[in-house]
């Protein structure tokens, strides 16, 4: 996919030149950096001063060649931040609104509606008016509506931003399922690092209308530049694990990382899906240069510092301990322990510091 565009905005010009080919591409940047404008331009809802947009070798826009496909001919499904469900139509009519799209603009293979409804768990909502949906339900309905229009590309504009934290964590797995089931490439706009790390396999980092970095999220987002953008966001580790066993009396559950490393997390009876994701904040991991002997924490992982980014008063460590972990320590702690790239360390994580 090729995305080259210049759009003059009130306070800066949005000027992006990127070419990528990923299942989920995250557009990551602070509020007001031009992310939504970029999605609008892709969908054909906003004029582009100059540039070109190509998806799968199909030109949607080219100022040089005078091509500018109408939004309805672009075959792009758009889930805006507010969902934008049609308030006068039932859930069913909303969902089917795009199903009549002509085949030359959308994908030609049909998408089974029941399958979409199952994946998003919204079958029971069909007869309801959309005004009676909760925020999370409305987002899933908007997503189903976009998928059933058989798009060649899905645009998701901060689909979780309006939801509270509990709901966010429940919707995120649905997005991952959509990614895996329907094979529709997605562009996902967010300013939340966890969402990028959970969903995306490519990231475009945008600031003030400029592309400041692009690449694989784990590598790019851990740069000093990225972390400075996270002032109000938590720096979190998102790990995919497999259930091993739960022990109610001990109050913990044993899980295994892809690398084979085993961890203890708070007790779960038995998860629906044996593979699931857990999180731990980069601030909740302790670093020691020697293995501690008697300590309450349930997880002590030997590892090596692979990368160290120094910022004002703090250091972000990327530690390879089976999987990669991000750890944030103060500059003084890093100095006291003599931390540098290649140092062998132990990561100490309380069982209860992990969350789902």
């Amino acid at each position: 996919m090729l995305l080259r565009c210049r759009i003059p905005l009130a306070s800066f010009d949005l000027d992006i030149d990127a070419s990528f080919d990923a299942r989920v591409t995250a557009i990551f940047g602070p509020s007001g950096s031009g992310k939504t404008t970029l999605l609008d331009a892709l969908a054909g809802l906003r004029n582009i001063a100059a540039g070109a947009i190509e998806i799968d070798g199909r030109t949607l826009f080219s100022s040089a060649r005078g091509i500018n496909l109408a939004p309805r001919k672009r075959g792009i499904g758009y889930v805006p931040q507010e969902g934008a469900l049609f308030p006068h139509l039932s859930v069913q009519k909303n969902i089917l609104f795009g199903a009549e799209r002509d085949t030359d603009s959308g994908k030609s293979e049909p998408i089974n509606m029941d399958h979409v409804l199952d994946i998003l768990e919204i079958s029971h909502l069909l007869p309801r008016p959309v005004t009676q949906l909760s925020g999370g339900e409305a987002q899933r309905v908007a997503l189903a509506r976009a998928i059933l229009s058989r798009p060649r590309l899905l645009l998701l504009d901060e689909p979780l931003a309006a939801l509270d934290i509990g709901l966010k964590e429940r919707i995120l797995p649905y997005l991952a399922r959509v990614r895996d089931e329907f094979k529709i490439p997605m562009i996902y706009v967010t300013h939340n690092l966890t969402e990028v790390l959970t969903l995306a396999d490519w990231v475009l980092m945008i600031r003030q209308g400029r592309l400041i970095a692009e690449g694989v999220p784990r590598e790019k987002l851990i740069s000093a530049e990225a972390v400075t953008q996270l002032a109000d966001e938590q720096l979190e580790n998102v790990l995919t694990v497999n259930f091993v066993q739960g022990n109610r009396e001990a109050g913990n559950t044993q899980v295994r990382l892809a690398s084979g490393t085993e961890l203890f997390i708070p007790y779960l009876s038995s998860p629906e899906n044996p593979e699931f994701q857990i999180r731990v904040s980069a601030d909740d991991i302790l670093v020691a240069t020697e293995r501690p002997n008697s300590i309450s924490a349930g997880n002590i992982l030997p590892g090596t510092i692979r990368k160290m980014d120094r910022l004002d008063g703090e250091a972000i460590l990327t530690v390879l301990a089976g999987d990669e972990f991000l750890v944030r320590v103060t500059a003084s702690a890093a100095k006291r322990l003599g931390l540098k790239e290649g140092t062998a360390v132990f990561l100490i994580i309380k069982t209860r510091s992990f969350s789902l």
Partner: protein
Amino acid sequence: MIFSFETWQITLFSISVGLASTLLILPFGIALAWFFARKEWPLKSVIETIALLPLVMPPVSTGLILLKIFGRRSPLGQWLYERGIEIVFNWKGVLIAMSVMSFPLLVRSVRTSFAEVNPRLEQIAATLGASPLRIFFVITIPLAYKGIVAGALLAFSRALGEFGATILLAGNIPGKTQTLSLAIYNYVQLGKDSEAYILLCITVVLAFMFVWSSEWLLRAGKKT
């Protein structure tokens, strides 16, 4: 109260021509209101002002303009006359006068209700593959329909109350062009006060019904 044949005749004539004028202007009013609410073009404000002019101009002045346009001595009047269509001093004159005078009210009300429809919904409908016509009829109109109905009711009430432009263009001919307003004026002139009061009651009841339902619809429209 027993209505005379004349009272019935005047009331029915007013209501039917008023209704016809509202139905006549509805498609044009909706189309123009949509262009005002959604499109930008050069001199838009000039066109908007012209469309709203009959609302503020003295109705008699508008009537005089219409008389000059449709009178037999004007090119248009002449052209129509040659085809057997006469506007002046018959019911068609009443229809034209009512339509022109109520048009701005319709456009204003409908334009406001279109402006209140979130354009984002129309944009998203377009990304889902809907044609502009489908968006208009399936998204915009249903979301604005309360304002459209309210505007039509207001326009109809305005048509019923029309006096100045009607009397200039269509005259005040009993049994031919006499509407409720014209008849009240006529009865008062002739000293037939009781007949005038009966018509007055009818106009008050009709006006109350229409304005009340139009306000009710506009309020209901805001809530959803």
